[in-house]
């Protein structure tokens, strides 16, 4: 036991002291922060105001376009051909040409511009024109605007989760996001640190330190020490990211909040938007409340570590069987397939979080960590959770046993051409 600790210590310290670890620990949270901040920044930055010349031959719209935050309309009463010529000299963004149109079938409206117009601008113009035409048609059918407004109904369905501890407001959207993030984090963690185990074992083999080490510790101790040591490195990095990421997001977030408040006083329009988002935030928080957070965190940690142990030992086994990274690839495939498969079926699980597929995949240890993390935010019966966790424990005990059988033989084999048949032989070989 003492020797496993020594191995863990070495694996941990040599990795944590590496420059790449320190750099990744700093860059990671910045990337996470960017993920949060850039959309906010994009949403709040001032949009450019564009002037658009309008030649209206139909006479329906003259001087009649409503103000729009980003578009400024300049109605001109010259010939189209001339307007087009002038466009190249003027600062206008483009020229909207409305020919004489049939109001029931408004075809032939054209937008001229020097550059390719953005989808935003075209979408805006289409929306404005559509509503204008609709209004004209409404007036024609003698329905006034107020009557129309009174016909509109605002409706949304509130979802309530019935749980033992009472009713809670739920949100499928929030559950989806939390499930996705948790599932994908487990996926990446297994991959990044599984490969590190694999590399570590190959390094020991190719540098020929292995025989010196196993004359002091049992191969199993060395393997477990490496898996646990690398896992501890992963957890450390993960925690650093969480704290730094959270810190940076809070700092930047609060900065933007202040800015936004200022903006509210300026623009009434913005205020309305802010109201909406405020309501949204409140909704999100109440649905986060609906999810059993302590359970989610516990399950995440459990599946996170369980999945890592399960796959980590398999990566160690592969590393022991081969001499270099290239040879490792053919054996990596069968390990990565269940992982990638779990990720692909996530959307199917999402459609039916309590379906048969979801149930069985969350029981099989190879897929259960990713699938279960997707299901938990939607609520999973406790017996399913306990069964799945027990199976995962059995699963990693089995893969660790399997891996140690291959590992003890593999680490001493150099230059041997290994295939699955030989791996099978090693499995049952006496020590």
């Amino acid at each position, binding site marked *: 036991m003492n020797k496993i600790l020594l191995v863990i210590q070495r694996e941990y310290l040599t990795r944590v002291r590496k420059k790449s670890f320190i750099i990744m620990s700093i860059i990671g949270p910045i990337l996470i922060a960017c993920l949060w901040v850039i959309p906010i920044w994009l949403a709040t930055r001032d949009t450019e105001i564009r002037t658009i010349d309008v030649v209206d031959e139909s006479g329906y719209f003259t001087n009649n376009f409503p103000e729009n935050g980003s578009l400024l309309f300049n109605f001109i009463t010259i010939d189209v051909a001339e307007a087009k010529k002038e466009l190249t000299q003027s600062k206008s963004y483009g020229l909207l040409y409305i020919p004489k149109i049939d109001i029931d079938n408004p075809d032939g409206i054209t937008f001229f511009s020097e550059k390719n117009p953005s989808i935003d601008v075209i979408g805006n113009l289409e929306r404005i024109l559509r509503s204008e035409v609709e209004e004209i048609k409404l007036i024609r059918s003698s329905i006034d605007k107020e009557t129309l407004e009174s016909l509109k109904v605002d409706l949304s369905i509130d979802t309530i989760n019935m749980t033992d501890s009472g009713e809670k407001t739920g949100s499928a959207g929030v559950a989806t996001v939390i499930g996705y993030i948790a599932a994908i984090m487990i996926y990446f963690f297994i991959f990044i640190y599984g490969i590190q185990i694999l590399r570590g074992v190959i390094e*020991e083999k190719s540098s020929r330190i292995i*025989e010196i080490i196993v004359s*002091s*510790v049992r191969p199993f101790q060395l393997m477990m020490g490496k898996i646990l040591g690398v896992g501890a490195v992963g957890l450390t990095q993960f925690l650093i990211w969480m704290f730094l990421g959270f810190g940076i997001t809070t700092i930047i977030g609060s900065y933007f909040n202040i800015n936004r408040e200022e903006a509210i006083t300026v623009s009434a329009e913005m205020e309305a938007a802010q109201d909406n988002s405020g309501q949204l935030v409140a909704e999100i928080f109440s649905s986060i409340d609906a999810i059993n957070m302590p359970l989610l965190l516990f399950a995440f940690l459990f599946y996170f570590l369980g999945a890592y142990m399960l796959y980590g030992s398999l990566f160690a086994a592969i590393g022991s069987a081969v001499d270099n990274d290239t040879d490792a690839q053919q054996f990596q495939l069968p390990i990565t397939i269940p992982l990638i498969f779990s990720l692909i079926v996530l959307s199917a699980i999402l459609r039916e979080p309590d379906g048969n597929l979801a149930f069985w995949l969350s029981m099989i240890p190879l897929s259960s960590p990713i699938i279960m993390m997707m299901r938990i935010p939607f609520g999973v019966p406790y017996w399913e959770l306990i069964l799945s966790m027990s199976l995962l424990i059995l699963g990693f005990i089995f893969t660790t046993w399997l891996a140690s059988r291959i590992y003890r033989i593999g680490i001493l084999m150099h230059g041997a051409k290994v295939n699955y048949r030989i791996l099978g032989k090693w499995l049952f070989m006496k020590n």
Partner: protein
Amino acid sequence: MELLYTKEIAKSFGDFWALKDINIHVPQKSIFGLLGPNGAGKTTLIRIITQIIFADRGEIYIENKKMKPADIQLIGYLPEERGLYKKMKVGEHLVYLARLKGLSSHDANEKIKFWLKKFEILTWWNKKIEDLSKGMQQKIQFISTILHEPKLVILDEPFSGFDPINANLIKDEILELREKGSTIIFSTHRMESVEELCDYIALINKSKVILDGSKKEIKQKYKSNTFIVEHTNDFDGLNNNFELLEKEILDHNLFRSVIKMKDGQNPNSLLSALIEKVQIHSFIEQIPSINDIFISQVNAQQNE
């Protein structure tokens, strides 16, 4: 007294028997040469002794007790295929290996300092392993093998990769280890170092021990009653009790003859027979070298 002996050790890999009925006796405070052609099973035997792998049958006794898992602390093993963690520093690497052998952090540091000083490489403490040359790394590996003062030191081709000066340094260390009471099992293909260092040898061929005992006795056993005589005056042959194997002219009128005695003769009768015919300048019994014994024994088995 024997530090270590094995009883009927056997090991198979699938259908192949790597070792069959191995009995070796390693006396205390001796240098024991483990010899044999490539693939004979030497490394397998060493790996069984160091508990890296386990025998199918048979037992190992160390200090007259059956070997336990904890007894690997008594052994220091320098494998033929050896390396170090390239990214680690010399000092921390040695501490790690010493602590795996059960030394406390403090003891490890003290002992490492002692050895680095002795080899005049104390300044390497903070150097990365990957910045050392192969020979320098070999020194570190040697130190790591003997740091914990093991009773049994197992060295597999210890001189490979060393220049003659460093090889000499290591050779002196091996002799000093024996002086201090360690027992050394020494596996090598360099017969001159066997001649020079070993007190006892075992020759393994085709998974079996074919020779085992003290180097002197084995040499005595395999001597062929052949004498090398340098003499002046030529002669054509002696009586029927002696056979002239070869004769060579060294200088004009100076010859070297190789003469084999038939059974029942002794060196004095050969001398008196010679005195009658030639002037004797030197008279030496031809003792076979370990190299000769190795080759003749392995070949004899090959031809069986």
